[in-house]
């Protein structure tokens, strides 16, 4: 009897699978084909010249009419205004999906939505993900008109990815709740900050938090090749009770739970603007003992449903107008050194950036970052629970 049931059970499951396999869908994959046809060659253009100049690119993009972006919060480095300006200037509708998404989510979306109209066109990724995606062949090489202004060590030689904007790790502080705002990592250890210091998430998952640990490592005698002092720093900070593992968000800051938040300076500066309306005086300081900066990367998806609009978006971002909009968001656009010397950088915005002591901050190499991540992933939880 059991054998009978088992046999019937297996037959039932197999039949179910067969039914699923035979299921006739009424969908069509025509949409993707149409999208590719519409672009008229933009999908393989590696620069504006390939299409006959910027004006031709604009025309092709307008014909497409839409752009899919992903994981761009409106308040992250002024992306809201960037999206609106682009949309109004060229009459292209921008669909902003999953603003809270991570870099991994962006890569996954490109892979799994391939061929659909909803697939992301352009990506803003952490460095490691840009490298990984380029290795997997997910990006279409493209060199913007201002390509020469981007330093060589901040772009992929073939044009698969390129740094767009960056910032330094900073200590944000609610000046009304904290008597003396800390200016350095060393000061954060003081007992008066007990239960007040937070990171923007879990360093093994969130890019800004990882950078925070790296910055603490620089401040505690470590370096780009040694992140362990940073882990030890936070372990000590947790033991003394100063560090609380809460993910600091605008809500926790407003509530007063995380009056000191270690985050990218452009994010903290964005909070200053938003919170001043609510009577909160949010100060931003780049710690002089741990100056750690890094950039994010732009890339165009090889299977973008709107390839011309995607390329126009890049041209816009790397034009003076786009770079100044990032500057307005308190981020440091990648062309800033060149724009400062040529005078095209907006002077007021430049002056409003959080002050950094060193004038020549180094960037860690991708290999150094990878090695540091491995050390962190292996040791973070153990160090902070011990």
């Amino acid at each position, binding site marked *: 009897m059991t054998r009978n049931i088992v046999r*019937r059970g297996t037959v*039932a*499951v197999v*039949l*179910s*699978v067969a*039914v*699923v396999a035979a299921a006739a869908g009424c969908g069509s994959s025509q949409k993707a084909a149409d999208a590719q046809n519409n672009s008229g060659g933009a999908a393989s253009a590696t620069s504006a010249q390939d299409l006959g100049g910027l004006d031709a690119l604009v025309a092709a993009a307008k014909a497409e009419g839409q752009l899919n972006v992903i994981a761009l919060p409106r308040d992250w480095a002024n992306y809201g205004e960037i999206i609106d300006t682009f949309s109004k200037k060229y009459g292209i509708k921008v669909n902003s999906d999953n603003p809270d998404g*991570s*870099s*991994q*989510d962006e*890569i*996954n979306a490109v892979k799994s939505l391939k061929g659909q109209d909803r697939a992301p066109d352009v990506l803003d990724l*952490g460095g*490691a*993900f840009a490298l*990984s*995606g380029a290795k997997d062949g997910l990006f279409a090489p493209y060199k913007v008109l201002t390509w020469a202004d981007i330093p060589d060590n901040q772009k992929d030689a073939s044009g698969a990815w390129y740094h767009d904007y960056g910032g330094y790790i900073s200590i944000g502080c609610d000046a009304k709740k904290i008597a003396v705002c800390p200016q350095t990592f060393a000061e954060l250890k003081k007992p008066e900050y*007990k*239960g*007040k210091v937070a*990171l923007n*998430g*879990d*360093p*093994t*998952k*969130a*890019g800004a*938090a*990882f950078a925070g640990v790296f910055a603490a490592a620089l401040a505690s005698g470590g370096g780009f090749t040694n992140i362990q002092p940073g882990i030890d720093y936070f372990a000590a900070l*947790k033991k003394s*009770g100063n560090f*609380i*593992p*809460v*993910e600091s*968000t605008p*809500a*926790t800051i407003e*509530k*007063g*739970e995380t*009056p000191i938040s270690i985050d990218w300076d452009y994010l903290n500066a964005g909070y200053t603007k938003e919170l001043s309306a609510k009577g909160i005086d949010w100060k931003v300081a780049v710690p002089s003992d741990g100056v750690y900066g890094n950039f994010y990367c732009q890339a165009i998806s090889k299977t973008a449903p709107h390839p011309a609009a995607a390329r126009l978006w890049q041209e816009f971002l790397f034009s003076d107008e786009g770079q100044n909009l990032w500057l307005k968001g308190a981020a440091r656009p990648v062309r800033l050194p060149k724009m400062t010397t040529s005078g095209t950088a907006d002077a007021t915005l430049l002056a409003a950036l959080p002050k950094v002591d060193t004038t020549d901050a180094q960037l860690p190499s991708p290999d150094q970052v990878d090695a540091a*991540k*491995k050390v*962190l*992933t*292996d*040791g*973070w*939880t*153990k160090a*902070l*629970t011990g």
Partner: protein
Amino acid sequence: MTTAVPTPRVRSLADRARRCGPWLAVAPFLIVMVIGLVLPVLALAAGAFEGDAIKSSFSSGYRTAFWGSVKLSVVCAVLGAVAGVLVARAVLSGGALLRRLVLTASGVLANFGGVPLAFMFIATIGNAGIVTSLLHDWTGFDLGDSPFSLYQFGGLAVVYLYFLVPLMVIVIAPALDGVRAEWSEAAQNLGATRAQYWRHVGGPLLAPPIAAGALLLFCGSLSAFATAQAMVGGTVPLVTLQIANALSGNVSPDNAGVGAALAIEMIILVAVVMAAYWTIERRTARWLR
């Protein structure tokens, strides 16, 4: 000597329909499960077998995370089951209005979690929480000095109960409804005390659904992660946080294999727990008959 000739079974249409009926009833369930569960799990398993993902998933960091998750889930399952039964009983003995309000609220809260839930408790008993400051102002007692901390294992368990207890309430309510008053009356008439009633009648009747509910709570707290992520980050070792880091992080790409391997291992862990649960259940069910 006549040998018995087996009579051929008559396969009438009605007969066949009657035999197939139950299978047809189960078919939609199986089809949906195949599409929405079996296939994705197979896809996940395929990802788990690439490279040395499985080997990496047994490193000490992940083992600690597994153990931490199991500890938390067991504690939450037991506490949640007990609290859920108590609350359900209290509610069901009240009026119909209370029953309706609580059961619908439980349906909502059982699916609550993540950042909003974390914030609710941070706003209440966090360092700058309302209750913390009120306690400090009224009694001078500083919650920060007590051994309880919202940002540790204990605090996480307290927060998890917020969605586990409603889940238990909803799941145990039908069983509690089925405990007839006539039975306790009959037991009373036969001379049993309340303790004896619960030990021999009520207890064995409710034990299986309560155990089943506790199993549900165990699985639910095992797979929760968004709340922990918002509240304790990586400072409490939980395997679901590691899976989230691997599959959806901003820090380390190319870790998807390890995430998939960890997820498959979680499934195996629960399969083992369920096997134990079934053996116990079968034994007690036999006794109930």
